[in-house]
């Protein structure tokens, strides 16, 4: 009987693909939700590059120009916006009851998280491509070359996906879009308390430098930056991929635990 055949449901990859497709469609059908978060980091990049250009003349500054140094920031800010969009979308599904609709199917919890974040993966990749192209157009040098571009896209997409799991976690934990929006400033504080705007060796305040040193966001920014200003820096890349991977693993594990609490189905 068809109903009992549905007991097992679709295979995990098929469930992830179906929900991922929905997630991507939602982004494609709300271009404003993708375009404005895409543009804002570029505007900030333009403002910083024009206003803080003289910083590149400081002794010990790691890049030839402030643009080369600052281009890493839009990748991080874009990733933060991806996290917010992923979180608010999931919160909306909870608030509207769409999650209950999904819970009535043989949907696996892993498929739900993976699929729901499919859009984050796609938008994280697409905006990374845009930031890279804009950077190259305005004269930023990518010292790691074409292979470095591929690593850059992989890393920045991974970072966006990792942050998206945090957005999903907040959505699953609190169940409202307001909670996710409230989380947004915290992410930005984490970015500002990192080496995003000034290299750690030039941060004069001890407390700031200590926080930036402990802040994993610094290592993600520095890994992206290294591909532009150094070329191939194995340690920076290892730390960047490691920190992003750790955030991803923690975010996924915590989201899965919150999903189990949220989905009270028997």
């Amino acid at each position: 009987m068809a109903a009992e055949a549905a007991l097992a449901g679709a295979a995990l990859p098929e469930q992830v693909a179906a929900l991922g497709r929905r997630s991507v469609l939602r982004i494609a059908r709300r271009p404003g939700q993708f375009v404005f978060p895409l543009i804002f980091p570029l505007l900030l990049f333009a403002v910083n590059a024009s206003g803080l250009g003289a910083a590149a003349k400081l002794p010990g500054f790691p890049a030839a120009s402030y643009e080369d140094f600052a281009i890493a920031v839009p990748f991080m800010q874009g990733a933060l916006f991806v996290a917010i969009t992923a979180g608010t979308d999931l919160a909306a599904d909870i608030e509207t009851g769409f999650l209950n609709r999904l819970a009535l199917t043989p949907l696996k919890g892993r498929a739900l998280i993976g699929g729901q974040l499919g859009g984050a993966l796609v938008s994280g990749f697409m905006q990374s491509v845009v930031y890279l192209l804009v950077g190259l157009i305005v004269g930023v040098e990518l010292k790691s070359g074409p292979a470095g571009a591929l690593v850059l896209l992989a890393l920045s997409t991974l970072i966006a996906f990792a942050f998206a799991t945090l957005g999903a976690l907040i959505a699953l934990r609190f169940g409202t879009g307001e909670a996710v929006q409230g989380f947004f400033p915290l992410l930005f504080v984490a970015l500002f308390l990192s080496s995003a705007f000034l290299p750690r060796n030039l941060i004069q305040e001890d407390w700031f430098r200590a926080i930036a040193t402990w802040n994993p966001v610094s290592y993600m920014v520095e890994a992206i930056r290294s591909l532009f200003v150094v070329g191939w820096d194995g340690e920076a890349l290892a730390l960047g991929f490691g920190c992003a991977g750790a955030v991803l693993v923690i975010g996924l594990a915590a989201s899965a635990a919150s999903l189990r609490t949220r989905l009270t189905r028997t």
Partner: protein
Amino acid sequence: MAAVDNSIEVQGLVREFKDVVAVAGIDLRVDAGEIYGFLGPNGAGKSTTVLMLTTLLPPTRGVARVGGYDVATQGPQVRASIGAALQEAALDPLLTGREHLELQATLQGISRTERRARSNELLERVGLADAADRRVGGYSGGMKRRLDLGLALVHRPRILFLDEPTTGLDVQSRTALWDEVARLAHDEGMTLFLTTQYLEEADALADRVGIIDRGRIVAEGTTAELKARIGRPSVEIVAADPAATDALAAALATFGEPTRDGRGRVGVQLPGGEGQLADVVRALDDAGVAVAQLQLHAPSLDDVFLAETGRKLEGADGDEDADGG
């Protein structure tokens, strides 16, 4: 092969939320192919009961078996047997009707080759074939409800739960949905558990009705049985001269405790049945009260609710005439 069980059986079902007892120990049985109307005001415990029976909320105590499976310990088997359209049509405004159905079909494990055909069949059936490729955000309330019903049917369930399926719909949409619900039960032998706060809906659709109030079932039976339990029709009269309303009420007081609606309409139950109508007319004649309107009402489900709880069913005032007509 074991016989397929399409029934719902509930014993002592309780759901508590901290200090609030939403469902306070209900017992009910719905037989295969039956439409069971679960009637009650807002906050009575209808939706909480549905959430437990559809496995989305674990019961605090008690036992419920749906389709032969225990809702607390055999959730996946229950979900495979049931379809559910919950209180708010939870749809994605950015997806089309067809995309909703195909997503649901995929998650339900329907093969890739069958998905498109099943979606088309259901779109046709719920009358959304023309709107299939439009985004749901532009659908009317009735269209959303119909899509919701289609989604609940994707995997051909044996038992269907509909939680207030017609709330907020216009009369035409409501009637269309009723027709489809009746067809599902009578032509396809599906068991239906339907919650509603509309007396008219329970009256029109349900084979049996359970009336729930404050988490407890206060009356259960066929609508005819429930009304027969009340047994007394009522009469509502408006005096031709509004100044005679007091005299009208005094004349009716000889039959029972009169009720007034504030707009000159005075009602009273007739303990002796319809035969007392002639006595009422004579009493009004003796009192010199000229009558502008007189309506005799058969007992309604609202009368049943009033008799069992001492209150009228919230938001059901507008349905009273239709029910008793």
